[in-house]
């Protein structure tokens, strides 16, 4: 995979951002949100023809800054995974992502950015790096109170520490966020899944997360 392609996607996203009507961007006030929560992980690693089931709990933190139709979002998650199969080695999972987005419409956001994940065990560390393009749409179920959202993405480039080169990655997240009245706090519940594959289809990791987090709007 060429190293130049992520740069092209970043450039395209910035171009779209600046092509937005000025009034559309100006109508979105600056918004800063941080969140922290718990996550339940479920990972299925495929090594050859043998799947390695792993489950565990973890935590997730994140922050986002948005305004004038632009978005900068960062997320970090970690957890400890274990398996009922004694032959499968326990491991830790750490992942993080930084995304830059634009909102051509108040309910639609386009994002691009890197997403990295590492599984660390005594046997070593397996890493994935995805350069993702995402689209997120929000449905206000109760305006300013309860939103549902869906985010789908795919990797336009990536790398992996698995033998062989990167094959691809697809994923998505669906959830709902409810703001607690008269407070800056919101509760978010979400399900996300992505699957990264090497160029050898017998090597893949499928990572699922159930997220329960609290958001605080700082501004």
């Amino acid at each position, binding site marked *: 995979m060429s190293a130049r392609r992520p740069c092209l996607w970043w450039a395209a996203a910035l171009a779209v951002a600046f092509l937005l009507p000025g009034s559309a961007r100006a109508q979105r006030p600056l918004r800063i949100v941080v969140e922290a929560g718990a996550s*339940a992980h*479920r990972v*299925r690693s495929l090594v050859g023809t043998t799947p390695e089931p792993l489950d565990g709990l973890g935590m997730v933190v994140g922050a986002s800054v948005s305004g004038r139709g632009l978005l900068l979002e960062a997320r970090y998650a970690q957890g400890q995974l274990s398996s009922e199969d004694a032959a499968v080695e326990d491991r830790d999972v750490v992942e993080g992502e930084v995304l830059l987005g634009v909102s051509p419409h108040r309910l639609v956001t386009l994002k691009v950015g890197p997403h990295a994940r590492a599984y660390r065990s005594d046997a070593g560390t397996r890493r994935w790096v995805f350069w993702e393009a995402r689209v997120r749409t929000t*449905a*206000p*179920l*109760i305006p300013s*109170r*309860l939103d*549902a*959202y*869906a985010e*789908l993405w795919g990797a336009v480039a990536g790398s992996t520490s698995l033998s062989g080169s990167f094959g691809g990655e*697809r*994923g*998505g997240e*669906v*959830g*709902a966020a*409810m703001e607690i009245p008269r407070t800056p706090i919101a509760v978010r*519940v*979400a*399900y*996300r*899944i*992505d*699957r990264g*594959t090497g160029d050898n289809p017998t090597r893949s990791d*499928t990572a*699922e997360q*159930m997220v329960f987090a609290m958001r605080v709007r700082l501004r």
Partner: protein
Amino acid sequence: MTRAVGLLAALALTAPISATSAQTASQLLTAGVVAYEDFDFAQAARLLGRAVALEDQLPETDLARALTYLGAAEVFRERSDAATAVFRRLLLLDPRHGPDSLRFPARVRRVFDDVRQATKTLAATLPGRLHLMPGRDSLRTHVYASSFHDMAATIEREDGTALLVLYSGPIRDSLTLPWDGRGGDGTPVTPGRYRLILVSQSPTGAALRSLLIPLEISASRADTLAIPRLADSLLLPERTSPAPGLLALASGIAGGGLVVLLPRMAGAGPDGGGGRFAVVGALGLAGVAGLVHHGLGRPIPENVVANAAVRRSWRERVEQVQQDNARLRSFAPVVIQAGAPIRVEGEPR
């Protein structure tokens, strides 16, 4: 030659006789007036008598003129009975006719005045066709009398019942009788056939002669106001649209469906974790909450109140227009068409 001259003389003698027999009533009248002015009263009476006999060919003014000269000629022929009969006929034709003082001597006018005093008759003029708003306009009938006497004026329905007694009392020379198009009870006249009856009465109240004038009364279309319509554009929505509620429910359900499908979309096959169904349930509940929040069209009280005021105002306007239309219809104009007068002796039939 002698025989030819004799034939021409015979033709010359018979020609005036043939020409006279072929004369029209108008020519006879002219010849009679010329004879009268030449003091040939016998010839005048003869020619004018023939003109009067052809009264159908004469307009009323010429007939009156013929009768006037004929009566005068009879006066000068000392035939007072004939003169009286002629003048009486002249008065019955129209009481306004009579010998004028410039053309006829006092002797003739004296005889005529005697006849006029003895003859009680009426004539009337009224518009041939009139649009009348009952209660507001009036039909004015001008009545002329031959001489002072009592009279009665009545409007009768077709069945002979009286609609209104217009006048009952003396008449000297002329009288104007207005009728406002309403019956004796004050209600507007309804379309139909009516008769205006003018009766000349004796001092004892007996009917001497009557003048019947047919009246055809028809309705004229009243100009009423259009009933105002309540335009939808004046009304505010009284309930919120059900779309936001349904859209929220659909979004929740769609989100839940997407959670179920995400593993397949990510390429992980159907082997997704069962825990995701908790999120499916949460999204479903969120959709229901959105539906409950928006409702399937909730009432908007302020709009209900505003619309009630608009409807009340509209109903008031409708009632006002209906009242105005009822008033306009009650005073709807009628068309009165008068027919040719019919003169009868005695009581009207």
